[in-house]
């Protein structure tokens, strides 16, 4: 798919202003719920600091904890696989599917499998993969990617869900009742759970000392899948590791409060070993993470626990939508993770921000997101991934501003031009400022001129 620059996609998204308002309000509502939950805990900021420190420690000792995890998981009877990239991850899963002669797979939400494009890969090989998270199932029917990592179908209104279900599940046309639609999805998914032979889940936290892992869902769909199928494959990025089970006391408290404002996910399921007759596999994936770990300015982006609080608070995300970020992980965090994987493809993303800093302060693991956006801008520019017109403009500006007399001349010219040819400068087609804004009214004299006249 040809990617559209964030600014262009955002412009298209903004054509339907009432819809932008609806999208913005919907996500702001989630941010408000997060605030309420966070502000009810006197120890909130301490929890954030602890979560940040535990993640920092884990990242600094990743090799040690991953090996400890592998050892303990293996002892528990889990088979551990290692994948260097998305391709290897997909191949490992396909091999397990083929070896076990599986046709039908259910999958609960895993952003890692989205990142690795597992679904299209398996579907192309003739495997039926059913996403069992309600939002994911909706977008899967529509052949769309998720637009949000926690709320995959947040870009859709209930009428659109109703139309989608009418087409795929033969629900009554025009019936937009959420209860009715959810019930239809429930009945449909029950069948899929019962028929499935293999369940794929994500991993929210993998615990080195126990070799177990925790999967958080609100719908219980990870459990339904894992308990019904005879094979369970859990997929995790290397950064999901935490040292001890007691650390969950920090992470489970901040995760859902940050994500949706709930005190805890409805289901926080702890998996330690396969039940009798079941196979349990875990695929541990790098896919660019060690590269990011090696960039001192960006390493701590790997602390991310995928709560999406930065999405919900981001005034740009709320008004441009998840698809404008053209990646599985959108929003501010996506804008600092994706350039690591492909600078050229994602060079627009660090610029899709006003650097307001709200993201860094809702982040439950204290990632300095807005500072990293700034730092990515410097790197992308140095590596030549910005338009040459911008480069010429910026270099020209830097030259003018480095020379006081030229600056004063240009300033005077600008004020003169604004007064003399206001309509020329305010051309809505050529000057993006003037498209929906008036230009400032030019004063007769600059402050410096006033100063020299009155105080000099």
């Amino acid at each position, binding site marked *: 798919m040809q990617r559209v620059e964030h600014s262009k996609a955002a412009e298209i998204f903004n054509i339907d202003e009432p819809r932008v308002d609806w999208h913005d309000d919907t996500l*702001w509502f989630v941010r408000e719920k997060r605030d309420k939950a966070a502000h009810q*805990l006197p120890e909130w900021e301490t929890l954030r600091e602890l979560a940040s420190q535990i993640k920092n420690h884990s990242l600094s000792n990743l090799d040690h904890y991953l090996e400890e995890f592998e050892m303990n998981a293996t002892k528990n009877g889990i088979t551990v696989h290692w994948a260097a990239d998305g391709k290897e991850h997909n191949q490992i899963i396909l091999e397990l599917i083929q070896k076990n002669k599986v046709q039908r797979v259910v999958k609960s939400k895993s952003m890692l499998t989205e990142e690795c494009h597992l679904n299209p890969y398996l579907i192309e090989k003739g495997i039926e993969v059913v996403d069992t998270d309600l939002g994911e199932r909706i977008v899967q029917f529509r052949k769309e990617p998720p637009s949000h990592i926690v709320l995959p179908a947040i870009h859709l209104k209930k009428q659109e869900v109703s139309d989608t279900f009418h087409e795929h599940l033969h629900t009554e046309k025009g019936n937009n009742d959420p209860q009715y639609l959810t019930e239809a999805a429930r009945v449909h998914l029950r069948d899929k759970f019962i028929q499935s032979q293999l369940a794929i889940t994500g991993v929210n936290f993998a615990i080195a000392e126990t070799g177990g892992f925790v999967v958080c869902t609100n719908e219980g769909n990870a459990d339904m899948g894992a308990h019904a199928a005879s094979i369970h494959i859990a997929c995790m990025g290397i950064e999901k590791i935490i040292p001890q089970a007691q650390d969950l006391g920090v992470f489970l408290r901040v995760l859902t409060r940050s994500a949706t404002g709930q005190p805890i996910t409805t289901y926080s399921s702890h998996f330690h070993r396969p039940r009798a007759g079941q196979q349990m596999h875990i695929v541990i994936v790098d896919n660019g993470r060690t590269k990011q770990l090696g960039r001192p300015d960006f390493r701590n982006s790997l602390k991310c626990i995928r709560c999406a609080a930065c999405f919900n608070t981001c005034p740009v995300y709320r008004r441009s939508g998840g698809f404008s970020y053209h990646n599985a992980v959108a929003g501010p965090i996506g804008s600092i993770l994706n350039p690591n994987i492909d600078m050229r493809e994602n060079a627009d993303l660090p610029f899709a921000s006003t650097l307001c800093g709200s993201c860094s302060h809702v982040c439950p693991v204290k990632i300095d997101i807005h500072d990293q956006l700034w730092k990515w801008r410097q790197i992308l520019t140095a590596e030549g991934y910005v338009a040459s017109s911008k480069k010429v403009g910026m270099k020209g500006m830097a030259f003018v501003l480095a020379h006081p007399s030229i600056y004063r001349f240009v300033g005077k010219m600008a004020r003169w031009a604004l007064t003399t040819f206001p309509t020329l400068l305010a051309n809505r087609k050529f000057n993006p400022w003037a498209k929906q804004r008036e230009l400032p009214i030019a004063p007769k004299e600059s402050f*410096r001129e006033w100063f020299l006249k009155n105080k000099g």
Partner: protein
Amino acid sequence: MKVGLFVPCYIDQFYPQVAVATMELLERLGCEVVFPLNQTCCGQPMANSGFAAASGGCDKNFVANFKGLDYVVGPSGSCVLHIKDHLHDDGDAAAALHIREHVYELTEFIVDVLKVEHIEASFPHKVGIHQSCHGQRGLHLSSMSELNAPSFSKPEKLLEMVKDINISKPIRVDECCGFGGTFCVFEEAVSVKMGKDRIAEHEDNSVEYITGVDVSCLMHMEGILRRQNSKTKIIHIAEILNSVVYAKS
């Protein structure tokens, strides 16, 4: 106490009244104000666009202008934050460091350094406060809604000293206005939409003025207000704090 008046380039050229108000206010509060005549810009427009490496000439010029002063004070949270975080000059590292450590946004200078408890001013109007992000989240001029921490606001503390002023706040008390430097032209659609949404909340409060510590945010909102033929005006906080009390009983 020698205070260097830092007048950001676009204020110098397009909003000189803000610099005049800042200068007069500081003088009224007892400062010896110096205006270095060859100042231009802090370099932020280039740096935030990814061209920090190209702003060396700007930095050098800034250091040459503001060297040897006790404090540097400017009526713009964003420009001050940029100086604080990024000013460097290999030729005169000590002077650059001194400036970084002694540069203040106007309201934080009045509250934290001058420790002013009383300002003689009157502004009998309904005014909506806009929180500029870099001042708020970068310079900590006020508490932020994201954190679970005690609430405070230096600009508001000063506005409360003004007679007859009626202060109001929007529902989303500290959402960004969408200016964002060159973001305002490279991401025009979202930038304007953000500005329109901020303005709408202030207008719901029937404000006569929107004020803040950063002219850049105000300039952006003013552009939208004027395009909409709105009666709402923008005014920098220095202009309010410098409103002389005419009627006294």
